[in-house]
Structures are given as C-alpha cells and as structure tokens.
C-alpha cells in the first residue's frame, strides 16, 4: 500500500498577459462559442513558456506546464526556483486559491496553506478575537482553537496586548501573533510560502524551530517554498526545482539545491580566467582580468585541497590616486562570505600612478572543504569612492584529498576544512 498523500498529475496553469480590457470580452465570447460547439478551448493551445525577462509575443502564458509530482506521508518537500519560476502559482493551486487550467491534484488529507501570515486579521478586533478569526479562516474549529489559545498566546509573546485591538500593535507583534496561530495548525498537509522571513532574529529562530518540530517531530507532510537555501536544506527531505513553469529537477534536497545553485552560477566563467569586457575608464580605474593559478603556475579552476590558489588581478589606472584598494571575497555557493582580504600598497605613490598593474594574492592550502566557491572582486578608494562595484568574477572547485593523497568522495560537513592537529595522550593515572 503506497504512502502517497498528495499527487499532482500534469498540472498546468495559463495566465493572460497585459491588461484585462476590451479584449477580454471578445475572448470570453469566443471561448464560450467554442464550448457550445463542443470544441476545445482555442486559447489553451497558444501561450509560451513563462520567461519574465524576455519580451513575449503571445497574449497567454503558461505559468506552470505539465507539473507532476508525488508526496509521501511525512515528506517535507521543498520547492525552489527563481522569481517567476511558478513556485507561488503552484502553491496557490495546492491551497485551492485558484484551480489549474488542466490537470489534477489529488489529496488524501486536509491541506492548510500559509501563503501569508495574518490573513483576515481585522484591525478593530482584539488580539484574542483575531486568534479565533484567523484560526477559523485557516480551517480550525472553535474548540480546536480554544484548546490551544493559551499556547498560541504564549508562543506569540503578546500576552500583555492580547485584549487590545490589533491596530495598536507594532507590525512585528502582529506578525508574531499571526505566525503563532499558523504554527498551531494541525492539518494533514501544510503548504508554506516564505513566511519565515518575518520578525526579528529571535522570532525567526523560533519559527524555524517550530517548523522543524512540525515536520520532524509530528511527521506532518509539508510543502515548503523558499529562497533561503539554508532553510530548505535544514527542513526538507526532498525538493523540486522549477524553471519557467516546468520541473527541471526532482530529487534529494542536497542534489536539488546544488542543481539550482549551479544553474544560477553557470553564468560565471569556470575556466579560471575572467576578462573584463567593457573598457570604460570613467573613474580612472578599469579591471582587465582575474586569473587563478595553481602551485605549478598553471591556469586552473579545479584545485586539490593541498594546493595554494593564486589569484592574479590585472587592472589599469588612468590617473594618479591617493589611495586604492582591491578587495577580494571568497564565497560559498550559498553566498556566505568565507574570506575577505584587501590589497596592500606602498605608502608612497609609486603603485598608484597611471599605468598597468598586476596584483596577486595567495589563498591558503588545506583550508577549503570540497565544493564550489565563488570569487568576487571590488575596488575603491577607502572611504571615498567605489571604483569597481563588487561582482562575481570566477568560481573554482576544490577536491579534497585524503591523507594518503587520493581524491575522496566522502564529504565532511563545513565550508572550510583546515588541517588541524589532534593530540592523544594516554593518561598516567589510568590503570
């Protein structure tokens, strides 16, 4: 007996682009005539894949196209993708806010959706009254809410204000109260949009903790949409990647996140050479190239963990500067900054006059863990002006070596993996 609790079969959603205007009536009539004649909807055939940035010629667009997936009981499914990839549309369909143009979603459990916290809060009602109203809107019954009232109030931390109209609340308090209600929902399937990105740091931590409890402890099925890759990795057991309304990847969370980030980063050069295209010298500075070299002075983008990585930056100065700095950042693929380093120059003007320059910095060996890293460069006059805004120029890959010198596939957690010394001493007073 299968454990499938939710199944999406071939779901697609079509939207109309542009204004709803006079064309709408004409299209509606046409559609209606076709229906009367028993023909297929003429507008379902047209429509392009959804691409936000390119100018599309069709009036109709597919926000989602032929999405198929299954969710087992207890799964926490992450849905990731760029803005406009169709994530929210998918959530809307799942939470029955709107229905798909074609296809079906079948479910065996009650779905509660959290596309927003505090839906239906009425400013004139008190906190307590809003707990009931919001809870009921989200699908709880009055007795269910009564049982949890104390818990909700405690979780929100708004006890002192609970009998004050919500319009007197600070926005943070409102969100806390709203999330508290939502967190105490007990549906079979919970659909969550990026509502975690609310509240102060303390509350966010609490919220993520609660989400973890819900998914891990209670074995609830959760569908989770987020841009926060760390949260997705943390919470989800499986993930799908959407792009232009289509599923491009489905699998384990780590693979999916890697796939997504790789796609995002594929614009970067991975040859170990970056050449700057524009030759603009507007503010007297121009970046020419950034190159990576290994210990043998070979141009590379793949490094072994026991190799030094030398970053060579070439730039042109068009005038004499009083001071100048080249800054280099190494980032993990989640875009956390791991290393920040700034160039050092002589105290006089010898290396700040107009001319061509090359500067280099050596990154330590036995420092990075296996994985993908990015390099970002910027340049400026400290405290005065930005000559070259921070931008990603290169990425590189590290392969970890075992002590014996062979490449290993075992990955230990962590972004860095420096070689550290461990000491074991047998204690004397032991028998």
């Amino acid at each position, binding site marked *: 007996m*299968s454990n499938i609790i939710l199944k999406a079969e071939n779901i697609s959603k079509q*939207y*109309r682009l542009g204004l*709803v205007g006079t064309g*709408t*009536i004409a299209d*509606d009539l046409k559609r209606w005539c076709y229906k009367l004649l028993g023909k297929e909807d003429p507008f379902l055939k047209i429509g392009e894949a959804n691409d936000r940035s390119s100018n599309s010629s069709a009036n109709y667009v597919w926000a989602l196209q032929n999405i198929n997936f299954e969710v087992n009981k207890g799964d926490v499914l992450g849905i990731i993708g760029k803005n406009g990839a169709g994530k929210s549309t998918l959530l*809307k*369909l*799942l*939470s*029955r*806010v*709107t*229905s*798909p*143009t*074609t*296809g*079906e*979603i*079948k*479910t*065996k*459990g*009650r*779905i509660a*959706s959290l*596309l*927003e916290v505090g*839906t*239906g809060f*009425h400013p*004139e*009602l008190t906190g307590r*009254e809003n707990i*009931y*109203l919001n809870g*009921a*809107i*989200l*699908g709880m*019954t*009055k007795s269910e809410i009564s049982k949890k009232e104390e818990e909700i109030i405690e979780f929100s931390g708004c006890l002192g204000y609970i009998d004050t*109209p919500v319009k007197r609340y600070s926005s943070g308090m409102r969100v806390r109260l709203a999330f508290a209600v939502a967190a105490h929902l007990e549906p079979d399937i919970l659909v969550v949009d990026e509502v975690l990105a609310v509240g102060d740091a303390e509350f966010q931590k609490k919220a993520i903790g609660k989400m973890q409890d819900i998914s891990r402890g209670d074995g609830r099925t959760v569908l989770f949409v987020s841009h926060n890759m760390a949260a997705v990795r943390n919470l989800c057991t499986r993930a799908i990647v959407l792009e232009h309304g289509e599923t491009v990847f489905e699998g384990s969370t780590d693979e999916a996140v890697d796939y997504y980030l790789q796609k995002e980063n594929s614009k970067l050069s991975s040859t170990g050479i970056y050449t700057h295209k524009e030759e603009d010298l507007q503010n007297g500075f121009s970046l020419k190239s950034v190159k990576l070299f290994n210990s043998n002075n070979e141009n590379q983008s793949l490094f072994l963990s026991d190799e030094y990585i030398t970053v060579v930056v070439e730039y042109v100065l068009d005038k004499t500067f009083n001071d100048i700095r080249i800054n280099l950042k190494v980032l993990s693929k989640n875009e956390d900054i791991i290393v920040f380093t700034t160039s050092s120059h002589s105290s006089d003007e010898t290396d700040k006059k107009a001319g061509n320059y090359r500067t280099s910095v050596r990154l330590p060996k036995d420092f990075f863990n296996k994985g993908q890293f990015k390099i970002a460069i910027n340049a400026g006059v400290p405290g005065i002006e930005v000559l070259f805004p921070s931008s990603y120029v290169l990425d590189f890959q590290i392969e970890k070596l075992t002590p014996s010198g062979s490449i290993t596939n075992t990955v230990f957690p962590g972004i860095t993996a420096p070689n550290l010394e461990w000491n074991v001493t047998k204690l004397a007073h032991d028998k």
Partner: protein
Amino acid sequence: MNTDQKDQWLYTISSKRKLIDLNFKEIWRYKDLLILFVKRDITTLYKQTILGPLWYLIQPLFTSVVFTLVFNNLGAIKTEGIPPLLFNLAGITAWNYFKQCLSGTSSTFKKNANIFGKVYFPRVIMPISIIISNLLKFSIQVVIFVGFYIYYVSIGKDIQPSSTLWLFPVYIIVMALLGLGVGMIISSLTTKYRDITVLVGFALQLLMYMSAVPYPVSEAKKKFPEMVATLVEYNPLTQVIEGFRHMLLGIGEFNLIGFLYTLGISIILFILGLIIFNKTEKTFIDTV
C-alpha cells in the same frame, strides 16, 4: 487497483467543475468561521462611534421621516388610512434588508480578494455571513417599527396585522434569496468587469422607486403610465414590499399569484447566483 486508489482521495483539485458544487459537509465544518464572520461584521461596524448600534435605528427612521414629508405631505400620496410614517417605515425596513444583502454580497469577491487569494475556505460562507449579520440589523429595525406600531395603536389608530402574519419568516427568506442571488451574480461579474460596481450604487436607488417602497401599488396603478405601472407590478420586489405591508398593516389584498411568482423568481435567481458564483470562485483570483 486504480479505481481503488481513486476512492481514497479526499478531494481533487482540477479545472473541471460540476454545475453546483456545494459541499454541505465542508460548509458545516466551517460553521465556526461563519459565526465568527457574523460576529466580526457586527462588532466592528460601529467601533469607535459614539452612538454605536443606535445608527441602525437612525438610518431608517430619518429616511421614513423624509419620505413622509416629501411623498405624503408634499406629494400627497395616500396610504390607505395608515399613518404615513408607519407606512414608510414598513417599506423601508423591508427594502433596507434586501438592499443591504445585495450590496453586501455584490462586493464579496472584490472586497475579500486579499483573503481569498491566500486561503481556501468555502467561498459561499462569505455572502451567507453577510445575509445573517444583516438579519440582526433587520431585527433591530423591526423593533423600532413595532415601537411605532404600538404608539399608533395606543393613540387610537385602527391598524391590524392581517392573517398572513405567519408568512413573516417566508418574506425574510424571499428577500434574502433575492439579495443573495442577485448579489452573487453581480459579485461574480465584477471580478472581470468593474463597470458593474458603478452601476449597482445608482441602480439600487432607482430600483427602490420602482419597487413601490414610498407608495402603494394601488396609487401607482392610478397615476403612473400604464407601462410603468405594469413594470412596477411585475417587479418581484414590489410583491415583497406590498406583501410585507399587507402582512403587518393589513392594507391591500394578499396576492397569492404574486407571492408565488416572487417566490419562484427568487429561487431561480438564487440558484442561478449559486451556479455563477461557483463557477467564478475557482479562478476569480486570476482576474480580479
């Protein structure tokens, strides 16, 4: 095996829809929400006002006074021996209930787009909650009507409710069905075509004059051009207002055919409204 599995699904989300897809079990499950919506509507309407629910009384009372001055004193419309104020109050109380049901439900989709866009619950809960909360306002207005009624009787006016008084709840249901039906149709149309919102405001105003609110039908027959008089007579609302006054004040005749005609129309409009509302609720969020 395949059919076996199909039976286990709790529900299916798809584009296909039945003509009327009212899931009463589901609506019942959301009954607490219905109650809370009604409570919200009532408690928040006059928050931070000094007179509070007194406003429920002031509106019909002043309208009745103005109607009496304009139509009965100035316009000399006869009210068949009933004090004009009481006559107008009866008509306005009934009319107000219909009007508020209609205008309340007609903005269901537009007004609640932000909630409907985020959470699912049976959408029909919203218009039903409006009907119920208006019922409470209506009953307050009935109380002042009864107050004046007692006053006029105590000063010796000969007013008697007719034997059709037992139809009172039926009239309320008819008005609710009419208001709900038309309101749901309008709210569905406004999701795409906003023109209708503009129309509703003044159409209701005009409709009141075509529904024999400030005058009895007998007067209309005497003084209106024939075509207009027929229009007024065949307006289902006229039947409701006339019947309502007949029931409470004992004027005119009880028109059984007119009553059944109105009942029929209101049921048809209600079902039509449900069908259209149901068709709209699934995707309105894409167009609203």
